[in-house]
Structures are given as structure tokens and as C-alpha cells.
């Protein structure tokens, strides 16, 4: 317990199983007691207050909830928190330190790769996984890599440019 008290519901059902999970989130170990059915996205958002991970569809289609799971992009709305026990998770908040920006974040701003911003964290996490594996992707490779992330505002063209911008910048570093 990190504080002197923990409020528990007085009428909580006794038969609900609870498990302790410890996840390395953005480089820091975080633990929580969770029901096995709790989705990873919800633990990140409500439990750890990392609200940059969004949920948009509940069916693994839109990709707004994409995080890196041991470096691979996964949709955290379709993964249980308990499945992440002992694993490494990176969210958008982990892309760069305070007052810093990752090249992908800069690229999205420079190339106008976002409008409403709701899909953006997921887009950027998928882009990071791509660039980690393939530092100089072609337009087709970017479009294919991002095909599990939906955007309703931009028409993708500027997102593709944003990823290329980031690739160029990272290449020069």
C-alpha cells in the first residue's frame, strides 16, 4: 500500500477473484490488484492514469489503444491486464521524457499528421514499432504497417509523411 488507507466497497462481492500484476510501464514497475477480466487499456488509463492510450472500437479494429508490448505493437483493448504481468509496456507517455519530443511526435506536428488527435497516440506507437524494425520504410511499407490503425480526419497522406519525416530525422541522429 502506498498510502495509509485503501477504500474498499462495503458491499463488494466476495467471490470475485483478484490477481496481483506487475508490469514494467514506460520503464517503471507498476503493480495493481486486478480482476482477471480487466482489459489492459483500462488498467493503463484508469489504474495508472496514462490516458494517452485511447479506446475507439472495442473490437481491435481502430488501433487507438495501440501500445508496445515487449516492443511489438498490440491493441491494449483486446488484451487482459493479467496477460501483461511480467512484461514490458510502452505507451505514448513513454515516447519521450518530460519537455522532450520523440522524432515521431515532431514529425506528426511538422507534417500535420493529426487533426482531432484521438488516433494519434496509437498511430505513433505503431510507427515507432515500424521504425525500430525498419528505419527507412517506403510509402507502401508505412501504409501497410499502419493499416491496423484508423484515422477519420487526415486521409493518412500526412501521417505517411510524418513517419517519413521521423525516419529522416532518426537517420541523421
Amino acid at each position: 500500500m502506498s498510502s495509509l488507507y485503501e477504500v474498499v466497497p462495503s458491499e463488494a462481492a466476495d467471490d470475485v477473484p483478484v490477481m496481483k500484476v506487475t508490469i514494467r510501464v514506460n520503464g517503471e514497475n507498476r503493480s495493481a490488484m486486478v480482476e482477471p477480466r480487466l482489459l489492459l487499456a483500462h488498467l493503463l488509463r484508469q489504474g495508472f492514469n496514462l490516458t494517452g492510450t485511447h479506446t475507439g472500437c472495442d473490437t481491435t479494429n481502430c488501433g487507438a489503444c495501440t501500445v508496445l508490448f515487449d516492443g511489438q505493437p498490440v491493441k491494449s483493448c483486446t488484451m487482459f491486464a493479467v496477460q501483461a504481468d511480467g512484461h514490458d509496456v510502452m505507451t505514448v507517455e513513454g515516447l519521450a521524457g518530460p519537455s522532450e519530443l520523440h522524432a515521431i511526435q515532431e514529425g506528426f506536428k511538422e507534417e500535420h499528421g493529426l487533426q482531432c488527435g484521438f488516433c494519434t497516440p496509437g498511430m505513433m506507437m505503431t510507427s515507432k514499432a515500424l521504425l525500430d524494425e525498419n528505419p527507412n520504410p517506403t510509402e507502401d511499407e508505412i501504409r501497410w504497417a499502419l493499416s491496423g490503425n484508423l484515422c477519420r480526419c487526415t486521409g493518412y497522406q500526412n501521417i505517411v509523411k510524418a513517419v517519413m519525416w521521423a525516419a529522416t530525422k532518426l537517420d541523421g541522429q
Partner: protein
Amino acid sequence: MTAVDEIKIGGMGASRRRVEDNRFIRGKGNYIDDVVLPGMLHMEILRSPLAHARIRSIDTSKAWAMPGVRLVLTGETMAARNLAWMPTLSYDTQAVLATDKVRFQGQEVACVIADDPYIAKDACEAIMVDYEPLPPIVNPTQSLADGAPLIRDDKENQPDNVIYDWEVGDKDGTDRAFAEADVVSKLELHYPRSHPSPIECCGSIADFNRSTSKLTVYMTTQAPHIIRAAVALVAELPEQMIRIISPDIGGGFGNKVPVYPGYVASILASILLERPVKWIEDRTGNLISTGFARDVYLHGELALRKDGRILGVRMQTTADHGAFFSDAQPSKFKIGLMHSAFSCYDIPNAHLVARGVYTNKAPGGVAYRCSFRVTEAMFFQERMVQAAADDLGMDQAEFRRINFVRDDDFPHRTPWGFLTDSGQYAKCLDVGLEAIGYQDFLAQKEEAAKRGRLLGIGISTMTEPLGAGNSREYDILGIKMFDSAELKVHITGKALLRTGAKSQGQGHETTWAQIVAHELGIPAEDIVVEEGDTDTAPFGMGTYASRSTPVAGAAVAMVSRKIRAKARKIAAHLLEISEEDIEWELGRFYVRSQPDRGVTIQECAVAAYSNMPDGMEPGLDNTAYYDPPNLTWPFACYIATVEVDPETGVWDVLRLVAVDDCGVRINPMIVEGQIMGGLTEAYAMASMQFITFDEEGNCVGSNFTDYLLPTAWETPGFELHEVVTPCPHHPIGAKGIGECAAVGGPAAFVNAVIDALKGTGVRNIDMPVFPDRVYEALQTGQDISGAPPVRTDEA
């Protein structure tokens, strides 16, 4: 000393990088689901599994008994407080929670409020509803059939399922034009039902504080002030005690204009429980119950002379509005602005008959990146134009050119009475044809045909009415469609700007500051923009119908000019000369005879608080309410080239050229972003995106596995071009742009596919132009209708 450099200070014409991005790229946006209030409870909605059924009973006892459940609401609970029904934006009523019948699949039946959303969802599952199924009606043909079940038996004076019959134009004149025609070109079309589907669903957090009597509601709304007025009227709460806050919105596209039952239920729950209640809609709820778009049938006819002139147009439309007529549209026009069709063509005679019907489908008919049925109007127009050109055996570009309103014909009265004021239609078409290499493509197409390859080119040209209103003609529920801006210039010359609009991705925080920079010379980075809080923002009608720049943006310019007028008096005081002897250049006033002697706008700001002239009210604040003299009329020309695979019906976009004339561009980068987004939604409509229903009224398209949205992989690249014809009545010459490409784009893609099929006898394939539809058309030589299936055992 000289004027400041407008581009350097982020003024008009600067592709200024967006201010709002700084939080979004860090995952620090503040969307509805990110808002957490102390003691907050969570609400979930139980929805009807049936499209049409009478409710025999609802047993909520098991839900109430579950640990963590705080409240269960049903239609009965709502009815006891006179809240079971609410008014819609179209003078109809809509059920908040069903009392008598359910009228569409997904209709709201009960709500559970619990400590946790998982518990609330579990408890919804525990509610037992006994339904008596009734025959569902899934299209207008069924709805209008003799003996069709009455959907709205709750209403008095509603003997059938017809909502309205509306007529506009000159019937006799049009009949005469058709009698004189050499050729009459006819087309039957269906613009299928679609859904805006912003990636963020809807939601609200109602927070009623009994000790202050204040109700604060965080809500995904594009129009917070309208919501405040609606809550005051529906919930009978005093308006000064209602505060609506629209936080960051994850896309709207019209989906977040209406009032939804979830909002109302969360408000009542908070009042009853005296705790904050959060409702976050899931995707299925969003797709099956919130504002759909389109779903209109057309019978269209053009009267043609052999030389290519259009003599008259007839349109007969039937709109499927679902179970409640809840379109967002100006009060005066029963089917929105469908009669804006053919506004870019010089046509002497026109007649439109529009009918609206109830069906057992979700209500809506809201704008989806289109204003008030304009999308359907323009799609029908451009499909009819292409068919007419083909029927005459004329070149489709030339046919358009012959019939365009000419540059020197403005102001021009459109076939159904709108007044357009500016445009260079033929020039836009020429730019587009040049960019696509029109003649070369026609040659290439002919060559390819010899080898069995099917190439096609589709053009769509249109001017559309954007930026409701003027207040003489446009109101919603009686509230006139003006907008507002309030500017506070601080003592150090920095400023705070608030408007009655509400950005959902359009970038207002960036562009509004650019307008102020343009008018006052204050660097854009020195101006903070706030929107969406009714306790602080001036009253405005919100953001939809591409009205932000035409109306609120104009208000920003006008309030800046008010500030400049006051600053001018201060400058005269500081320079110790008469106001008449002062000139303005960007960022500074100077003495006409001594240009070196001047004061900056920032120096005037300091003086407004520290050294104002005798008798002048201190401070440098003002508010402007702007009522535009007219709509704005942007013009667009979209040209698509495609190749159709005759073996599979699959079609690929080869190129898409867009020429947009939206007048003066405030931020070209953002304008181009809007156009590309719109083109993508146009491609989506043409190729894959629709919501249909099976014969039982089950929604097919209730999740993103069934409701297809294009990804980066399918979406073609776009080539953008511009023509600038300033709007003559807008203070900075701007016109609306947000919706143009989504409105004009679909016809370019469909026309291209139909053009590829020229010679097969196929004149139409309804959207979405799925490969199997193309394949079937190629095999049969018949048109393909997309009308939904009819339940045969009831017919």
C-alpha cells in the same frame, strides 16, 4: 519602423504548425473519457435487440441487487419526471428510454449507474425485458405500403408513416421545359445510409451539485450553447445554473451535434444521486443508435436540348429518417438544403418533391461532413450530369462547361432560389483537366480498351452552400444561426480569444489566432484561444456545416476590428494628434505625415490599462456577434481516374485530382488537411462504407469489422490544386471548406467507375461500389440498386 511581417507572426496565409498538437502528440489531450471527477459513478445503457416490439414488462430487480449498483433507470423512471421523451432538432420527439415500444434495434431501454463501468455492464445484462415482436419496417417502400404497421403510434395526428411531403420550385415551368426537351435523361439512385464514426464515441459526465444548484455537464458536443438551451428547456433547470463543457473532441463530423438519450439519462442520474455520473458510449452503441447520415432515394430527370443545354431539372426524393425525425437542419427547410442541387449550373426551371418517412431504424439524418442534406444533393446532381452527358453522347467536361454559371453572372439566383455570389467554375475545371491530363487519359483509355482493360475518368464539379446562416433564413429551433467571438487584450499586449464555435480537429486554436494576427498584428503565439465552455465562451451555434470560418471566423475578424478602433483612439492620445491624422499598418499606428512616429498595438494595450485618454473606459476587450449576409459558396472540381478489373469487379484509383476554391485560405496546411480528410471519406462512401439492415431490422454494420472504414492501405493518394475567388461578403474573403471534398468527392469516384463501364449498358451502380456489384453489372449489363432487402413474408 515598419509593419510587422504577417507570415512571420503567424498571420493569414501562414502554414502555422498547430498549437493543439503540443498536447495531442504527448497523449495529453483532455477527451471526455479522460475527465475524472471525485466520487464519479459510471453509466451503461441497455439497448433493444429488436427493431420493432412492444414492451410487455421490464424486471430490474436482479440488477438492483448487484453489489455496486446505485441506480437503474427505465422509461417509467423517466416518465415520472416527464423525461421519457425529448424534442428533436426537427420539431419531432424522440424517446429517451422506451416506455411503450422499441422502434429500432439499439434503442435505449434502461440505464444502470454503478461504481464501475464493468459492474454497470453486468447489471444491464441482468435486466429482463419481455418484448412482443412487431413487424419491422426497413425501407420506405415497406413504410409507405398499404396497411403498413404504424411506427409512431405515440403521436397524435400521425395516421401513417409519412413525416413530411415538401415541394419547392416551379412545377408548371418545369413541365413546359420537359415538353420542349430533345432528350430527357433519367436516373434512379440511392445514397446509402452511412455513419460519421469519429474514432472517439460520444459521452458525458453530469455533475449536479445540490448545495449550489449548479449542473455541470462535460459532453462530446459540437454545439455546447445549443445543448445548454436544450437542457434548460427539457430538464426545466434555470439556464444560469447549467454549464456545458465540451472538452477535446475526438472527431465529430456531425455525429456530435444532436442530443442523445445517454446525455439526458446521465444528467437525471446525477440529479437523483447527487454524484457525478459518467457515460461513455461503446462503438456498437455509437454505430447503431447515434446520428446516421444519408439514406435518401432519388428519381431524377434532366430536360436536355441537343446542343447540351439543360432546360430543366426534376428531382423526387424519399428520405428514410428512421424511427424519430431528428435531423439537424435549419427549421425552415423540411429536408435540409436538398434544393441546393444544381447551384453551379445555369438552369431556368426546377422542381423538387421531397418525402420523408419513418422506418424501424436508428434516428439521425445529421450532417456527416455535410451541411443539411447538401451531400446527397451534390451527389445526385453530379451523377445525373454524367448520365445526361452520356445520354447526349457529349464529353462530360464539355457538358459541364456549357451549363456552368459564368464568372460574370454573379450574383446568380440558383434553380431553387439560393443566391450565389462568386466563383470561377470553368477555371477550376480547366485546372483540374490540365492536372489530370484529360486528353491524354482519354487516348490512353481508348488504347487500353483494345486490350480488354477498363479505364474510366469521373468528374464532379459543384458549389455548395456552407456556413449557415444568415439569420433571416437559418435557425435551429428558432435560435438564429449567428456566431460570436470575444477578445481580451491584456496589458502586455497578449490576448485571450473565445468563440461560440467548437473545434473537433479543425485547429481553431491555431487559425483563430491567425485571424487576430492578421487584423491586429499581434503575433499568433501571443494569443490563446478557448472554446467549448458555456460559462466563459460567448453564445454561438457551434461547429458543423462548415460554418466556423464563415461565421465564427468572421466574428473573430470583426471583434479584432472593434479592438483596433479603440486602440486607434488610444494611439491618437499617445501620439497627441487627431485620430484622423493616423494611419494603420499591420501591428502599428503612425502619424500620416511622419511615418516614423508611431505606436504599436502592444503599446496601445499598455495604455488601455495605464494611460487612457480622459473619459475613455479602461481595458481592451470586446465581443462581436456576426450574422453573415449570405452563405458562402466554395466551388470544387474533383477528378478521379480508375481501372476496373473485368475478371473480379475490383477497381483501383489511379489518380485523384482536387481543385478547391474556398476563397482566401487562413492556414493553407490546415485547409489541405481538411480536403484530404474529406476526400478519404468520399472514397469511403464510394467504395466500402455503409450501414444496411437485414429484413428483421438488424443493423449490419454495428462494429468496425462489419462497418468498413478505409485504412492507410486502401486510401489513394491525392493531388491538390487551388483557385482563389474571395468571398465578397466575408470580412477576410474566406469560404467554408471542411465538407467540400466529402460532399463533391463521392460522385467523382462513382462517375469514374461508370465511365469505365461505358458501352456495357450500365448507367448506375449504387454506392458502395463493391467489386461484386461491379462484377454483377458487367455480367448482366444491368444497373445495380443498393436498396435494402424487403421482408417477403410480410409483403
